[in-house]
């Protein structure tokens, strides 16, 4: 996916002024948070599971090459093919080649964030394939020609009314549906025939098991199962970091994923695929390919952000992020929104181009507190700011102000004098009103809120005057 036009600021301004989006966000916000909290409370030892999951991930990441080799060897032994793609372009070429060889016409897709990351749909459509997203949310935004705004609920920015409008335009000959159930049925009907036409089915991979050569997808709609079993060839697209050693390990992650993502004990469908159809199997794909995408991940592994590779793409961080809740996912400008995106997007697409992302965060830590694999998201966002400074990206005006403040703060006498002066001027200006509704140089504060004025001379002055110990 190409980065969206504009800046974070400009996209956020559009988002804040969009009543439909605000309505959608208001409906979604409390839902995921409350459901997760209830699901987590019902399971004993959730905290311990988080620790265990983080430890499993760290252990795998510390010798990722070994686990990837084991995984690939196992897949090959089952008759599947593993392709390593170093970047997005290479990943696209590998998949185009598979589709060409399969003489495909229709390509069905299960939801895959890696597919969004590498911008797959555009090139396949340009090649003339009929590409059909089969996850309901992805189907909606494909019809709307919009990018996803959430990693597990890609059309969360759309209201029911907007979906009804879209379906009415795109499903000629069907009466307009307005209920959620009616809309789901309508999509199911439209997609059903596509599954039967599908030549290549492309899905993501939530987890890859080294021990068994298995790829796992979890969905609530069963669309992934139909995509991969009814197509002649099944292509799994996945980041290289998604491999875990054993099925036992998988059980740890499955208990965390659904609860963290949607607040379910488990998703409706958890599907394990190990290789193509074997002799005697009643169904399944004739070809089974796994495209493992690096695209900057091994570089990430070697740097200060390696903990990001623990991410299992559950979306809990954005569900709990008040900034995401205010502006939605499109403001973040690319595939990965919210806190995880504020770290990933600069790493994938450039620190300078995405300067705002790690800065548009209050460091409130709520994301970090719910992350199922205990990624220190808030700390990493701060570290990203440090990387931006080291790259010379902090605006000069801010840099000068920080330097001046830092210098004064190391001269206690001078700092005191500035505090005294500031206190006095603010009190003079406020009079007895207690606060200021405007203040030259502080317009960004007073545009939104009054500034409470100092209620008297500084504390340290008063403390000394009263003979307090210092």
């Amino acid at each position, binding site marked *: 996916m190409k980065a969206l036009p504009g800046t974070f*600021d400009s996209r*956020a*301004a559009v988002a*804040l002024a969009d009543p439909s989006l605000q309505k959608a966000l208001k409906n979604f916000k409390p839902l995921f948070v409350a459901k997760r909290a209830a699901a987590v409370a019902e399971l004993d030892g959730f905290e311990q599971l988080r620790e265990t999951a983080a430890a499993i991930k760290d252990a795998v990441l510390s010798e990722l090459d070994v686990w990837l080799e084991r995984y690939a060897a196992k897949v090959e032994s089952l008759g599947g093919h593993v392709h390593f793609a170093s970047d997005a372009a290479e990943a696209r070429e590998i998949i185009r080649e598979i589709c060409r060889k399969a003489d495909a016409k229709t390509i069905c897709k299960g939801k895959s964030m890696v597919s969004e990351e590498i911008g797959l749909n555009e090139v396949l459509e340009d090649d003339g394939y009929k590409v059909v997203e089969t996850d309901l949310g992805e189907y909606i935004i494909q019809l709307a020609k919009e990018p996803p705004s959430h990693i597990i609920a890609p059309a969360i920015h759309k209201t029911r009314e907007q979906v009804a409008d879209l379906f009415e335009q795109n499903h000629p000959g069907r009466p307009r549906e307005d209920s959620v159930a009616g809309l789901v049925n309508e999509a199911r009907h439209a997609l059903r025939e596509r599954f039967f036409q599908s030549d290549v089915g492309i899905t993501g991979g939530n987890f890859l098991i080294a021990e068994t050569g298995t790829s796992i997808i979890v969905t609530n709609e069963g669309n992934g199962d139909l995509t991969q079993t009814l197509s002649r060839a099944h292509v799994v697209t996945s980041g290289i970091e998604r491999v875990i050693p054993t099925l036992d390990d998988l059980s740890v992650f499955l208990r965390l994923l659904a609860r963290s993502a949607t607040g379910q004990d488990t998703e409706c469908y958890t599907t394990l695929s190990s290789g193509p159809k074997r002799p005697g199997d009643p169904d399944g794909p004739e070809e089974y390919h796994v495209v493992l995408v690096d695209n900057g991940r091994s570089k990430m592994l070697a740097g200060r952000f390696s903990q990001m590779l623990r991410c299992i793409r559950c979306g809990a961080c954005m569900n709990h992020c*008040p*900034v995401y809740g*205010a*502006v939605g996912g499109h403001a973040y400008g690319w595939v990965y929104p919210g806190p995880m995106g504020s770290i990933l997007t600069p790493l994938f697409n450039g620190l300078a181009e995405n300067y705002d992302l790690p*800065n*548009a*965060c*209050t*460091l*409130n*830590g*709520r994301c*970090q507190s719910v992350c199922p694999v205990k990624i220190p998201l808030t700390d990493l966002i*701060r*570290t*990203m*700011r*440090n*990387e931006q*400074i080291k790259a010379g990206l*902090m605006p000069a005006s*801010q840099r000068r102000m*920080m330097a001046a*403040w*830092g210098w004064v*703060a*190391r001269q*206690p006498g001078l*700092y005191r004098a500035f*505090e005294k002066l*500031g*206190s006095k001027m*603010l009190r003079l200006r406020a009079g*007895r*009103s*207690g*606060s200021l*509704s405007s203040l030259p140089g502080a317009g960004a*504060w007073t*545009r*939104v*809120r*009054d*500034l*409470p004025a*100092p*209620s008297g*001379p*500084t*504390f*340290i002055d*008063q*403390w000394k005057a009263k003979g*307090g*110990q*210092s």
Partner: protein
Amino acid sequence: MADTTAAHPRVGLLATCLMNVFRPNIGFSAAELLERAGCRVEVPGSQTCCGQPAYSAGDDDAARAMARQLIAQFEDYDYLVSPSGSCVGTVHKYPALFADDPAWQSRAQALADKAYELLSFLVDVRQVDIQASYAGKATYHDSCSGLRQLGVKRQPRELLSKVEGLELAEMDDAEVCCGFGGSFCVKYPQISEKMVDDKLRSIAESGADTLLGGDLGCLMNMAGRLRRTGAKVRVWHTAEVLAGRTDGPAIGEEESR
């Protein structure tokens, strides 16, 4: 000597920049509560800032310079205490800043180990007799740094339950950020406005006439927005209520009410 220290520890009060300038009453409230808890309170006159603005901005070099200064000023006290979760939270981040400097790291760690946010100190470390009264229905906002970095949650509520006449009405989303976030609120004013308005709605729905919290930055943000929108909710730092120092104007309120 050891007995004296245990019974009457020497506490260095970290007078946060915002408190020092905008709300001295919080400092006196903190000192009063600490003294009532048996502490000998001192306010190092050379202190300036914990370095939080630099730390949050990712300016590690500046943050380290501030940290060295503050460590030297406070390390001889039995405790560092401050009426702010975010400033104390910053002190707790010091050791990580000195990952490549073992000598400073051990000094930073020693200070972090005895650095406490006021309200949690008064429950978890010392006991204090609360004798205050306050007529009103209050709701408590859990400021993010205190809550998530230091685990300040039950302590203020426990203390507030002892204030005569005060009814505590929990709001929805008490743990959700108010939109302050230090420089965030001036860098992204529109998003901050949306966030503080969501918070104001929760406050209004709680039916409270008073808003309490433990971090002045957040309180100034919410008090300023409450005033701008004409809401009549009074805003205090929790320490002011616990110390019974609520005779004057609340945060942002006009004088001679």
